C-alpha cells in the first residue's frame, strides 16, 4: 500500500515502439516481441521525472501513470493498419 503513482499500459493501444524502455530502463524492459514489461510496485520518487517523460513521449499514448482508476484517460486509438485488423469493420 503505497501512494506513489504506478505505471500502467493500455495493451490495446501499445504498438511496441519501445521508447519507454529507453527512457526508463530502471522500470521498463521489453519482452521478446518488443512490448513493455513493467516492474512491480510504484514509481520511486527519484524516477518520477523520467516516468512522466516516458508517459509524455509514448507515441501511442499507451503508457500512463496511474491516478485513481476513474480518471485514467481513455485511449482507443487504433494503432494497426487495416491489413492487420482481423475483425470486420463497419461497411462504409
Amino acid at each position, binding site marked *: 500500500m503505497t501512494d506513489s503513482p504506478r505505471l500502467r499500459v*493500455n*495493451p*490495446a493501444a501499445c504498438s*511496441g515502439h519501445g521508447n519507454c524502455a529507453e527512457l526508463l530502463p530502471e522500470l521498463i524492459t521489453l519482452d521478446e516481441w518488443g512490448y513493455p514489461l513493467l516492474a512491480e510496485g510504484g514509481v520511486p520518487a527519484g524516477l518520477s521525472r523520467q516516468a512522466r517523460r516516458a508517459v509524455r513521449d509514448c507515441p501511442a499514448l499507451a503508457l500512463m501513470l496511474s491516478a485513481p482508476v476513474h480518471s485514467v484517460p481513455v485511449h482507443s486509438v487504433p494503432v494497426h493498419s487495416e491489413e492487420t485488423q*482481423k475483425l*470486420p469493420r463497419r*461497411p462504409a
Partner: protein
Amino acid sequence: MSVDYLAAAGPPPAAPPAGLPRLIPACAPADAGADHRSDKQSLAGHLARLGPLRYPARPGGLIAEAEAAGLTGRGGAAFPVHRKLAAVAGQARERRRAVVVANGAEGEPASGKDAALLWGAPHLVLDGLQLAAQATGATEAFLYARRGEELSRRLLGALRQRAAAGLDRVEVEFVQAPDAFLAGEETALASWINGGPARPAFKQPPVYERGVAGLPTLVQNVETLAQLALIARFGAGWFRALGTAAEPGTMLATIHRADGGSYVTEASLGTPLTALLPAELAGPGAPADTVRAVLVGGYHGAWLAPEQAAGLSLSNASLRPAGAFAGAGVLAALPAGRCGLAETARVGRYLALESAGQCGPCFNGLPHIAGALGELAGPRPRRQALADVQRWAGLVTGRGACHHPDGFVRFVRSALTVFRAELDAHARGRCTATDHTPFLPVPAGPPAREPR
C-alpha cells in the same frame, strides 16, 4: 390484441416449475405442429406455462430479490447479478438514460446453451430483458444473438408477438453478433452495437459507465436474464430450492459425450460430474477405460484427469481448487484413444486466430504458443518446444485488454499437466492415440470476418 394474448395465458399465476427443467420447457414432438396455445415457445404458450410477467412495485425490488436469490452471471464469469444491476441503476439515475443488452453471442464453439435457450424459451429471455430495463432505469434494450437465419426469424417473430401484445415497456432492437470467439466480451459487444468492430477495449471506463452509445450499459447473458425472469415470478426462495447454498439455482450446460453425441441440459449447481457424464465417469471400466480427460468450462477452461473429474461437481467451489471453473457450462469428455495434445493444439490454433489482434503480447504470443503446441502434438518435438510454451505462457498472462490470453493460458497449462504422459510418449516419437479424428468442435476454415 393484447387482451387476446393475455387471455390465452389462462388464470395467473402459473405454478412454479417443480424440479427440472426450469428454463427450457420439455418439447414433446407433438408440440411442434400444434396450435399456438400448445407451442410452448410462443408468447401464449410461454404465458400459459409460467403466468404473466409481473414487474416489482419499485425498480429496486428486483435487485434485492436477485441478491436474495444469489443469482450470478451465467455467461461464464459468475459475477453477482445484483451488483451489476445496482451499478447501472446508479449510473442511470445520474445520466437519466441507460441501455440493457441480452447477450446471446455465444462465441464459444463448444457451447450451444444460449442458442438452445433462445430457441426454446425466447420469451423468458425477453421477459428478463424487460425486468432488467426496469430495474436499471434503462431506456433502450438490445437482443444480441449469434448469427443464424432460423434463430433470427424466431427471435424477430417473438419480438413481434410481444409488440402486438403490448407487453414490453422498452422497445428491443435485434442485433446479430459476428462469428467471433470474443463477440460476447462486453466491450467488444458495445463496440459492435455502436457500429465498430467487435474487438475488446481497454476497460476504462467500464461499460456500466460508458457502453452502448456512451451510456451506462448492462450486459447480461441471455440465461442470466431468463433466470431473473423466473426469480421475478417465483421468488428467491423458490430459486434456492435447487443448487447449493453458496451457488444456488440451476445452470444450462452443453455436454459433449465420449461417443460423439452432444446436447444441452439444465443442472442444479453442485451436480456431480458423474451424473452429467454417467457412462464416461461412472460406467463399466470408467473412468480410465472410457475417457482420456474431461474439459470443463470451455476453451478458456481447463482439462481435468478422469479420476479427478469423477470426484468433482458442477460448481466453482468444487472446481476452482482443481484449477477449473464452471464457466458457461461446457463439459467435454475426450474419449480414451484420442490424443489430448492434438486436441489442445487444434483448439489452441483456433484461439490464436481469434485474438482480436490488438495487444502485442496476445497477437504475438498466442500464435507462437499454438505453433509450439502443434510441434508437441507431433512426433519428436524439439526439446525446447515445451520450455518455449511455458515461457510464452508466462509472458502473455495478464497482458491483454481482455482475458483472452489468460483463458488461453489456463487451457494450455492444464493440458501440459493432464497430458504429461502423452508429452513423454511424443518425445519418444510415439502417440498413444488409436483414433486421430478431431473431437472438439472448431469452426472450419479461417475465422469468419465478413462484415455484417
